[in-house]
């Protein structure tokens, strides 16, 4: 009797182990998709409304659910590529006639028409979330698939239409009105549908087999591909908990692992299971001198006296010193723009003292204005200590971001301003630092310099937006010590070797379009 029971139990165990083995090996499904991938998110998405596409963490999944008229090219070249729209025609300086593809449907089967485009854009404007819509005026419906996009004034560059055309998500008015809101129950047109959403906990997406874009999959940008059947985004706010998730195999990808923890995945048995990458963010801290108060020698003295590597250390494990006004995150970054042998990369107390001696500094206490984040305060204290070494006294004033902007827009009351900056590309971020039109006819640093303006505009212009002209602008900035690039942020992106080729859309990892083991 006992023997019989033992045999039954053994058979059951064998069947179970075979089943487990089969499940484990069958990770690529019959439809060619990888079965499931788990991604850690540091921030809770909270809702799935079709807005705020640039907010973390929405940019990791929002384009899988909703789509836009055009795509900004995935490769970072910033070219417009058709998506829902078949194309456009410039009727006059302020009117574009846009035609929609005739088979764009949402998950409920509603066709996307010109009226839906008008509704979606007006909804975004009314919600107060339509940033960078400066040139957008209105949508005029011509027929179901054709409409005129009216601009308030002629577009100086196509990039000025980036947000209405490539960041404004278009959805069906009928579906929106039927649901009342898309906060928890969205209806998009994307390659993935929402399978499960628990605010604060997880978002599970499932590949949409009826996706309209399958008919155009070779023409659309790769972001529209669904190479995974199911993607589970898990909200894990604490980085160390997410690292445990990676180590126990419940998380396959995490992009916010502190650099200090990266070693665990590089020098242990985990090295065979995970790939590590250092990711650099598009935001960085700068120091803007008030050029009305500080002469060129004093500015150089201050900049040579600051060791940005030490400042980065004081700010915490995710900060790294900058070596130019931008990072490899930006699409127009080039290694030739690294400012070697300048005060950005060199910390030289002797030079600092020489410049100070040549300056008109009279011993007064300089006001160092900074935003009130913990990291910024730590940086300000380090800078204060460095400047004290050359005999420059400073007083730190920590204020909120908008108070910072209000104060720095005044000609007096501050001497050094430290804050973060970012943008779609390097020159986009430079607008705030080098453009003579920020403060009427002066830069943020209160510089009025025609030569700087010429160099900046040349670097920005479509025809001359290249490393050579950007470098010329930077060299001029360094020559006159108009600004200082302090520190940027970086973290480790760690992902399971199930992902053989991690796809990146405009710099953001995109698991839906990545290639997986067995594909």
């Amino acid at each position: 009797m006992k023997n019989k029971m033992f045999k039954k139990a053994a058979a059951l165990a064998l069947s179970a182990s075979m089943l487990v083995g089969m499940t484990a090996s069958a990770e690529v499904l019959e439809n060619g998709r990888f079965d499931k991938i788990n991604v850690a998110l540091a921030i809770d998405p909270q809702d799935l409304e079709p807005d705020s596409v640039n907010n973390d963490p929405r940019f990791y999944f929002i384009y899988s659910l909703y789509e836009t008229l055009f795509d900004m090219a995935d490769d970072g070249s910033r070219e417009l590529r058709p998506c829902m729209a078949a194309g456009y025609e410039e009727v006059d300086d302020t009117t574009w006639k846009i035609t929609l593809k005739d088979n764009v449907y949402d998950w409920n089967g509603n066709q996307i028409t010109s009226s839906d485009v008008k509704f979606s854009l007006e909804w975004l404007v009314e919600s107060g979330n339509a940033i960078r819509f400066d040139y957008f005026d209105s949508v005029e419906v011509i027929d179901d698939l054709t409409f005129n996009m009216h601009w308030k004034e002629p577009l100086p560059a196509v990039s000025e239409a980036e947000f209405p055309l490539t960041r404004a998500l278009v959805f069906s008015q009928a579906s929106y009105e039927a649901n009342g809101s898309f906060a928890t129950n969205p209806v998009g047109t994307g390659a993935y549908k929402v399978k499960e959403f628990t605010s604060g906990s997880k978002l599970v997406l499932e590949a949409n087999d009826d996706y309209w874009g399958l008919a155009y999959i070779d023409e659309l940008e790769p972001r529209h591909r669904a190479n995974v059947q199911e993607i589970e985004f898990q909200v894990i706010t604490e980085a160390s908990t997410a690292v445990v998730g990676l180590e126990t195999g419940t998380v396959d990808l995490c992009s916010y692992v502190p650099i200090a923890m990266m070693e665990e995945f590089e020098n242990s048995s985990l090295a065979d299971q995970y790939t590590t990458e250092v990711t650099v963010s598009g935001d960085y801290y700068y120091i803007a001198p008030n050029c009305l108060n500080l002469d060129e020698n004093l500015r150089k003295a201050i900049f040579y006296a600051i060791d940005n590597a030490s400042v980065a250390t004081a700010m915490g494990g995710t900060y790294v010193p900058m070596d130019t006004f931008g990072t490899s995150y930006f699409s127009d970054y080039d290694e030739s723009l690294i400012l070697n042998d300048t005060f950005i990369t060199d910390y030289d107390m002797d030079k600092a003292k020489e410049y100070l001696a040549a300056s008109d500094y009279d011993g007064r206490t300089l006001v160092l204005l900074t935003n009130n984040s913990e990291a910024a305060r730590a940086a300000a204290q380090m800078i204060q200590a460095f400047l004290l070494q050359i005999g420059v006294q400073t007083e730190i004033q920590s204020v909120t971001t908008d108070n910072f902007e209000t104060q720095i827009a005044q000609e007096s009351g501050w001497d050094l301003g430290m804050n973060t900056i970012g943008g779609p590309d390097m020159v986009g971020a430079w607008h705030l630092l080098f453009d003579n039109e920020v403060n009427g006819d002066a830069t943020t640093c209160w510089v009025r310099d025609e030569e700087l303006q010429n160099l900046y505009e040349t670097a920005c212009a479509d025809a001359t937006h290249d490393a050579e002209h950007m470098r010329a602008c930077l060299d001029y900035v360094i020559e006159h010590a108009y600004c200082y690039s302090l520190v940027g942020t970086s973290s480790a992106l760690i992902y399971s070797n199930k992902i053989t080729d991690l796809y990146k859309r405009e710099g953001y990892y995109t698991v839906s379009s990545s290639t997986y083991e067995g594909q």
Partner: protein
Amino acid sequence: MSRYVIKRLLLTVVILWCAGFVVFTLTYLVPGDVAKILLGPEATEDVLVIKRAALGLDQPYLVQLGRFMYNTFIRFDFGDSWVFSSSVMAELLERIPRTLIIGLSGMIINVSIGTILGIIAATHEGKWQDSFVMVIAMVFVSAPDFFVALLLILLFSLKLGWLPAYGIDSWTGYILPIISSSLGAIAVNARQSRSSMLEVIRADFVTTARAKGQKESVITRKHMLPNAMMPIITGVGGGLAVMIAGSPVIESVFSIPGVGAYLLSGVNQHDYPVVWACVIFLALFTSFAILIMDLCYAFLDPRIKAQYSRGKKVKG
């Protein structure tokens, strides 16, 4: 007694009203333009004007306050989140059970283990049991919640693989958060129980009971414990409120989408409707915890019960 409860419930309404007024006024006084913070530096003045109007920030303080009080206390509606478009009330209702599971389970563990440890320590005063309990209590009183939580994750999730490190996919996801949040409270309760028990352990009525030949276990259960319970209940009631209010830390470490994590995200993102709703929930919860604590006093102490009864007679 029922009159007292009704009076306390009415007082709770006043407390909530005051909490609402204070939290609204404090967030109103926080410097900075919320519209600008929400939309970022790229937003133009036109967009900011639309955003301020959409959020009602273009109205004077009294109008904003009046609207907030009316919506909160008459319509029971906190509106929509400023950062996200979801209803704050709906989100809060979804999160409250998760926070309560952790808080109430933690309290049950705290009362049962903490009190027993305190009794053991007191009845074995000066012996190794006493020293052992007090050393353990001292360690957990000193160790911060998040540190204990991370140690538990490393042990039970990473090394042993017994329990999930985060999430609420199954009931097992709640085990580590409950243990982490209750360890500190158990330690505090054990120390409180010990000191309360020591106060009554040499009381005349205890000596009398011993002289009458009562069993030591009966003396502890029937004579010492009821008399030592008042400070313990005060500690437990307050501890429950602290445990719920302190939930942001534990919920963040274990990625539990509860009220605490919601409050933390509201504060970090200047999402004031979320902050208002969470603070009012915490005030409501604390009021009820204190009310239950007061009712327990009456249940345990006949003198307090008699006071309530006298009050009723006088007023009746």
